[in-house]
């Protein structure tokens, strides 16, 4: 049995070993950083390129490393578009399908490690992870929107903000996701035409309306944000102090009172489906007759045979439902093929690719003119809200405000779920 002195001696040796290893790793890191800084200083300053310069450079680069996320149908969509991009430009697309959270965490870790050249060129993500990535200094701070020729087809309101988080042109919107009210035509003949009528409709049809937990599904928190605008006014929050608001001071007492009142007449009061798909399954099973839902989730379920299209209709109640999210692309600061990434972004905004959003997916294009050219039989499908994008554009366009939305999601747990 070792004595206390011997144990202490061994412990000291181990601690010394560990600290020396750590100190050595830190000094090695410093040496690497100094070397990279010297290399950067030696590089010539680059002047603003023309689009032709960018295309030429992109072909020279020959590769774009693209990180996407989403369901299986999104993965297929990205892979198909990437194959088309490769065929058109001869630039290889290395596609990685994962999730936005781990991709942004990887970028943060690489930034913390001091990397200046990385292995990610293009990231598809939405407002919150973009904001995280921007604040961590991992976004290439270049006004990409101002240089892409196809960007002029994108509504100008989306050039410099996403869910009212400023993007400075560094995030290029790619899709227009839309939530609508979905209802069962075999059970409902008179859905509420407006948000004003929703509560009365629920009272007349108790247990037949639901929305998913806003913390587990985007249809839930988009619905929540819509109610905030409906109740307190869109202009109260829209475009205000872009990126510098203080949502903590909002009480939203009327909103919580309304939601608690609504809950009494909802499906299984106190029970909120754990996500978009869970809510969709309840509607497909006929347990609920009306709910807010993403139109591409409806499309996916119809395509998979899990939802009967003959008993479904989608519409936008008055005054409207929040438009978006407008997920899109950004280029990390250390992307080794930035020009190829910009070329891909421009390709995504081309008429051909934007049309594919309508025919091969069920999301609105950013180029709204493309909708007019879409085949009539596609536009007549049940997953598009009545009137399609044309009708949507006649309504007020409410963009979600991410900071208020996230605060509301957090408060929803306290003010509604816990009550």
């Amino acid at each position: 049995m070792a004595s206390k002195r011997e144990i202490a001696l061994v412990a000291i040796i181990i601690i010394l070993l560990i600290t020396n290893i750590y100190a050595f790793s830190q000094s090695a890191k410093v040496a690497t950083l100094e070397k990279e800084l010297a290399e950067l200083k030696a590089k010539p300053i680059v002047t603003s390129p023309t689009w032709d310069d960018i295309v030429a450079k992109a072909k020279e680069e020959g590769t774009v490393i693209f990180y996407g996320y989403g369901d299986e149908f999104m993965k297929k969509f990205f892979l198909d578009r990437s194959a088309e991009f490769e065929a058109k430009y001869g630039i290889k697309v290395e596609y990685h399908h994962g999730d936005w959270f781990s991709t942004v965490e990887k970028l943060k870790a690489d930034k913390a490690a001091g990397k200046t050249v990385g292995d990610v060129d293009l990231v598809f993500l939405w407002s919150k992870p973009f904001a995280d990535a921007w604040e961590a200094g991992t976004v290439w701070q270049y006004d990409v929107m101002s240089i892409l020729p196809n960007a002029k087809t994108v509504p100008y309101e989306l050039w410099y903000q996403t869910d009212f988080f400023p993007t400075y042109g560094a995030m290029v919107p790619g899709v227009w996701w839309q939530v609508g009210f979905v209802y069962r035509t075999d059970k409902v003949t008179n859905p509420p035409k407006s948000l004003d009528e929703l509560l009365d409709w629920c009272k007349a049809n108790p247990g037949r309306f639901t929305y998913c937990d806003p913390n587990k599904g985007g249809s839930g928190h988009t619905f929540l944000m819509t109610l905030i605008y409906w109740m307190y006014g869109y202009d109260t929050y829209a475009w205000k102090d872009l990126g510098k608001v203080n949502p903590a001071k909002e009480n939203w007492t009327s909103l919580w009172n309304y939601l608690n009142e609504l809950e009494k007449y909802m499906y299984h009061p106190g029970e909120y489906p754990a996500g978009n798909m869970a809510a969709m399954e309840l509607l497909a099973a006929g347990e609920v007759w009306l709910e807010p839902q993403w139109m591409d989730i409806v499309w996916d379920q119809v395509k998979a045979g899990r939802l009967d299209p003959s008993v479904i209709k989608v519409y936008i109640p008055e005054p409207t439902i929040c438009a978006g999210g407008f997920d899109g692309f950004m280029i990390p600061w250390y992307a080794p093929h930035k020009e190829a990434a910009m070329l891909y972004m421009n390709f995504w905004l081309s008429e051909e690719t934007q049309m594919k959003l309508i025919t091969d997916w069920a999301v609105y294009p950013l180029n709204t003119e493309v909708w007019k050219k879409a085949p009539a039989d596609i536009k007549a499908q049940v997953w598009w809200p009545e009137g399609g994008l044309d009708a949507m554009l006649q309504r007020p366009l409410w963009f979600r405000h991410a900071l208020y939305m996230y605060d509301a999601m957090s408060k929803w747990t306290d003010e509604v779920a816990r009550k």
Partner: protein
Amino acid sequence: MKKLLEKLKKISLALYFAPLFIFYGFIFAYPIFLTFVRSFGLFPVTPKTPSEFTLKYYFEFFQPNSVYIPSLWFSFWNSVVTTFIAAIFGYLVALYFFKANYPGKKTVSALFKSPLFVPYLVGAFMWMEILAAHGYVNGFLKSLGLINQPLRLIWDPYGIGIIIANVWMNVAFMSTLMLGALESLNPDLTYAARNLGAGTWTIVRKIYFPLTLPAFLAGSILIFVGIFGAFSVPFVLGGSWPKYLSVVIYEDVVEHGKWVQGYVSAVIYIISAVILTYVYTILMRRMAGRK
């Protein structure tokens, strides 16, 4: 000189194990150490976030109306109920297989063990389909005319679905453990008890259970610790409120970017699990008459 050589021998022996200690230190101790340190706001994960000592996230955790204490309590009692049911059922299943002897017993035993091979997340989705309002259980009960409205078995405030799924996945574990313990008992004890006129229930109460109590305790503690901090089952089957603390950690970190708050919850989780396991072990040992 002889003493010095002996001491050097002992030190060199300890040094042989040093790489192993360093390895385990990095794999186990370092992550826990980092979690603990980061819960005070030091060495933050996010670049550009200053590293400064703060207790505010601990204060937020212990705020009277915060989500954290109720979530910790929910995680605790839900896990205790699951452990109790899984342990008892596991023991009964083990007793059944210990005593039963019929053709096809091995096949039946293998079927009972099948949950051991199902990942928790897969099991959670499976039970979601079975217990959902439009699922098999409600469909069956409706077809028998026993219910008009579907029962709330998932996303409910009591975690019924969580309990059912976790019990299903842990009964097999407990029964496997207990069967091994039962089979290691000296059969002469059973014969002697029978000779003295003891019935089966008396033998179970007076011989089997007391002698297999250490295995029962060990199995129960392992089940509890495993589900207390688990994520996938409570995330899929849990309701909007109350939630397991593991789900709250996920929402804090992934949805709200509140990393430090997540670390605080993790530290409290670890400390709670250690304390509860220690207290449980002491109590059970006292009940078993051990010092």
